[in-house]
């Protein structure tokens, strides 16, 4: 959620920055001096341009944001693989290629150093394809400047019967590797499908964020790294690379002053944006699928976390010093760790070999977090009920348990409900980071659509509205549940 807001804010700030087209024509790398240049965080271009003091480098996390920042004039130019922002994209956003970079970058597939056989197979395949020219023709088909018409895509052959071949991709962008529905397409994907067929292994793709990309390979979550992975000497120290399958060329993109503005009116623009974001390729399915993941993680974590929270609360209120201390330390530790770190530790360290899926691990991590949050709410709520209420009930002849459930608990619920509701909504928003575990939740659904449409704002707004509605519904549901409680 925070990520969404930040991106939305960045987009807003970008749009506020105004429409400053550089007066000077940009023809070479010398011309970009003094300008603001956007690129992808951690990419080769990022590393190379970091050395230049005479430009302002603006780093974004997605290709969508790079090119949109140029389109709206927030930066003067951006640098990225020329094949990604093809003619279609450029026309849609009103940008053009200013010039092509001088260098070429070999891209390959990454392997663990000890997986010698797998890499040899991959190399052998690439060699054969080079020899018979099929690699060249494949590249030509996928990387043409006209782009690939999604309606012409044919489902890949992926019917291997052996162990699944698990692929981590670091980019979700046409034409390298991208999703249509549940299926991955693109140049790299096609190569991987072929490798899978060659080895009689079915291929599975997962998209990982920069934070967990490398770790997915070394942590054993996947077998091959893909995603426009450029082969550099630095990377070769830790990772074994296949032969290069293609040499990517960078291009500098600037706003095209001659572009025919597609502004056929705001309403038509929004309608078109909706159509592209939701209707085309049935992209609304990403939203519903993401919604389901988000709901599953949120609700199960609330449930499990609340049960654990009762335990923490019982410890905190216990007369035994050890238990009290345990509850205190638990709260201090859990609330002291950033949620993302807790999530990654669970995924890569604690639960790494348990065979639990990413969603289950996310539920465990959020339950641990919610146990601390709800446990504190529970014990504060119970402490808000004076001990005299218990005494009055005991004096009437209730047992301790009866006094707790009929007299103390309903009052505690009334006191604690707003705080509990608040924590549930915080949890819902916190789950927006599960994309780091390659879970396609609501936030990630918005990102996937953005990467396909290059539409900067609308998918974010849709996702935001859904989060708002969810938060409201959770509040409503809790009110209803507690409403029943009030009349006992």
């Amino acid at each position: 959620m925070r990520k969404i807001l930040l991106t939305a804010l960045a987009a807003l700030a970008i749009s506020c920055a105004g429409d400053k087209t550089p007066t000077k024509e940009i023809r070479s790398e010398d011309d970009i001096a003094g300008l603001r240049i956007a690129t992808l965080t951690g990419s080769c271009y990022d590393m190379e341009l970091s050395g230049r003091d005479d430009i302002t480098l603006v780093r974004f996390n997605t290709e969508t944001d790079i090119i949109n920042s140029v389109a709206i004039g927030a930066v003067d130019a951006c640098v990225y693989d020329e094949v990604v922002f093809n003619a279609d994209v450029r026309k849609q956003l009103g940008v053009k290629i200013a010039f092509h970079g001088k260098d070429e970058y070999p891209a390959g597939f990454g392997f663990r150093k000890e997986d010698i056989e797998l890499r040899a197979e991959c190399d052998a395949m690439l060699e054969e394809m080079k020899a018979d020219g099929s690699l060249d023709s494949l590249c030509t088909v996928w990387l043409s400047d006209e782009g690939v018409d999604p309606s012409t895509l044919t489902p890949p052959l992926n019917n291997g019967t052996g162990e699944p071949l698990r692929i981590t991709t670091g980019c979700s962008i046409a034409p390298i590797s991208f999703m249509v529905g549940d299926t991955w397409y693109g140049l790299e994907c096609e190569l991987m499908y072929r490798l899978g067929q060659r080895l009689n292994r079915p291929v599975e793709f997962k998209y990982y964020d920069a934070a967990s990309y490398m770790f997915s390979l070394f942590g054993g979550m996947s077998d091959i790294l893909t995603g426009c992975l450029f082969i550099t000497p630095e990377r070769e120290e830790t990772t074994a690379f296949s032969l290069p399958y293609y040499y990517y060329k960078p291009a500098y993109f600037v706003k095209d002053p001659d572009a025919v503005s597609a502004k056929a009116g705001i309403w038509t623009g929004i309608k078109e944006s909706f159509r592209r974001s939701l209707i085309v390729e049935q992209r609304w399915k990403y939203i519903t699928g993401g919604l389901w993941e988000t709901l599953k993680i949120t609700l199960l974590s609330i449930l499990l976390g609340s049960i654990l929270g009762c335990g923490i609360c019982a410890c905190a209120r216990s007369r035994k010093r050890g238990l009290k201390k345990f509850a205190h330390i638990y709260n201090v530790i859990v609330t002291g760790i950033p949620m993302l770190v807790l999530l990654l530790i669970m995924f890569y360290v604690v639960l790494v070999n348990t065979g639990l899926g990413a969603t289950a691990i996310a539920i465990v991590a959020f339950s641990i977090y919610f146990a601390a949050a709800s446990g504190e709410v529970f014990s504060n709520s119970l402490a808000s009920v004076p001990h005299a209420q218990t005494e009055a009930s005991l004096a009437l002849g209730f047992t301790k348990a009866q006094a707790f459930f009929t007299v103390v608990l309903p009052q505690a619920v009334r006191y604690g409900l707003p705080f509990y509701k608040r924590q549930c909504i915080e949890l819902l928003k916190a789950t927006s980071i599960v994309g780091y575990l390659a879970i396609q939740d609501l936030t990630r659904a918005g990102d996937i659509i953005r990467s396909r449409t290059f539409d900067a704002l609308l998918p974010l707004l849709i996702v935001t509205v859904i989060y708002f509605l969810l938060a409201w519904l959770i509040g409503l549901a809790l009110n209803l549940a507690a409403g029943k409680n009030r009349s006992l």
Partner: protein
Amino acid sequence: MISVRHLSKTYHNPDGSSLQVLKDVNCEIGKGEIISIIGPSGTGKSTFLRALNLLDRPTSGEIIIDGENILRKGYPAHLLRQKMGMVFQSFNLFPHMTVLENISLAPVKLLGMSKADADAQSLELLRTVGLAGKADVYPDSLSGGQKQRVAIARCLAMRPEVILFDEPTSALDPSMTGEVLSVIRQLAQQGMTMLIVTHEMKFARDVSTRIFFMNEGVIWEDGSPEQIFLHPQRSATKAFVQQINKLVFDIAGAEDFDFYGMYSQMKAFCVKYDVAAKADAVVQIAEKMCRDVLEGHYPLTVRLSHAGINDETTLDFMLEGYSSSPLAGVPSGSAALAAVKGLSREIVEELTTRGFRIKIIV
């Protein structure tokens, strides 16, 4: 019905210190008795009451109710409490329930009464405490006196055999104590067995069949109201029931004594015990006596006392070792002595074992 033997209770504080609140309490309580427990604060009255229904577990001793020692291990305290109601100083109504629900809750959950029967009984009880119109409001909207009457009704709903009242009027505005005391009086007339910890002396005297005067963790004196209030056997009892407060000054000699300080303390004393009107007379008498009438008679002990029970304020002048009245030597035309006589209700001269005392009732 209830017999208590050698009951003691010690509280252990977290800092390691401990406080023995009950030392050795012994008593027998019969059916239908109405016992008021009086005594200075901090002498274990409430603790004794709370020990009887096991809200505070005694440290040692025995409480035998209908032949069974309730302090034995595993004794079902909740069953005892169903028959032994308790009314608290701070009412402790359940704020999340209406008045009616407060009263019906326990009979429905614990006696298995139907909701309809319990509500009918609750309304009947509300009528007897004069609050039938408040059945459906929440306790928050009631005055303190009304809350306490509801608390009594809630307690009665369990049809207890004994009711323990723990300072039922102490948290109330003085204007509201009357309504609560009337309800308790009404119960007394119906023959309910009751133990009442109270500071309302007049009420205790009127309503009780027996009085326990508790002091220093024991039942210091136990007797009929007449015995305790009119003929207390022990001086602590007497001081307490007559509500005597005193202020004592020892004057060794006139030179070094702070008379002005004494006067101002006397004034403050009068204000404190609600006899501010007498403050001027007290100070004038003290001044005339010390500086004039008794001049030169040292050492002199001056004692100012006030008995709340009859509102009597007294100044005593004790001359140690004297065997005859110093007043005898005062010239008959003394203006000071005449003034003292004019300001006082009565002057008593008496010879005591310590010396000669002049007692002036203001």
